[in-house]
């Protein structure tokens, strides 16, 4: 049985891959020049083209380090937003969205306002509340007098 020569070779020992990938991810986070960022992203992009996770069949510490690197560098976000790396790297954004909810919920507790209350029935000014029960407010307003409440009831 012959193996396809164009298929990327996998290292048998993943323990040899993990430190190198972590150091590459850290270098990616510290890269300042745009060509360095693009080159490092292409490396990860090629690796993730046929993998879900960087090492192994489950999420590992390397994936978290890469995700942190993607999150910390604005140039990388710029590259992703321009659809230069649409497929494998962008899968990380789903993971990032989940973590963003965690981060923003803790860091910015007042930034998420309550959803606007929806009014079930709006009383019309032209209608007599006695004629239409649907427009009658459920609770009397404090400004209503006792006489008006008697009429309504």
């Amino acid at each position, binding site marked *: 049985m012959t193996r396809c020569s164009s298929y990327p070779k*996998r*290292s*048998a020992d*993943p*323990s040899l*891959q*993990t430190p190198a990938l972590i150091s590459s991810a850290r270098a990616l*986070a510290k890269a300042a020049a745009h060509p360095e960022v693009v080159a490092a992203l292409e490396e990860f992009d090629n690796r993730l083209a046929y993998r*879900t996770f*960087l*090492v*192994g*069949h*489950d*999420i*590992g*510490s*390397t994936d*978290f*380090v890469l*995700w*942190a690197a993607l*999150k*910390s560098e604005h140039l990388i976000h710029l590259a992703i937003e321009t659809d230069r790396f649409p497929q494998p790297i962008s899968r990380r954004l789903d*993971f990032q969205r*989940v*973590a963003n909810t*965690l*981060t923003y*919920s*803790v*860091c910015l*507790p007042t930034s998420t306002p309550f959803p606007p209350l929806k009014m079930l029935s709006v009383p019309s000014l032209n209608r007599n509340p006695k004629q239409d029960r649907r427009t009658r407010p459920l609770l009397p307003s404090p400004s209503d007098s006792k006489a008006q409440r008697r009429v309504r009831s």
Partner: protein
Amino acid sequence: MTRSLEVRYIALVSFKRVTLTTHFLSSPTMSLTLSLTLSPFPYAAAALAAYTKQAEVIFDDAATEVALDLNGTVISGEEQTIEELAKVGGLSSDSTTV
């Protein structure tokens, strides 16, 4: 992703100290202390602590670097923290097979 990253949290705010409490698999014996003003922010360590549910994340403005308290033993630095959290949480990629 075989394990969902659904993190249920209760943020307990007391002055400038925020504690992020997740649903732990067991009683947490570790705590990860970090500050929101750290630059670069240790996202990997915070995400690992929340995902593995093994360490309680404490946001403390007085912290100058990320520190992991492991049963009284304090580990400082993001790299060492990530390694230790990955070992405890079973996420160390060294043990997986490709």
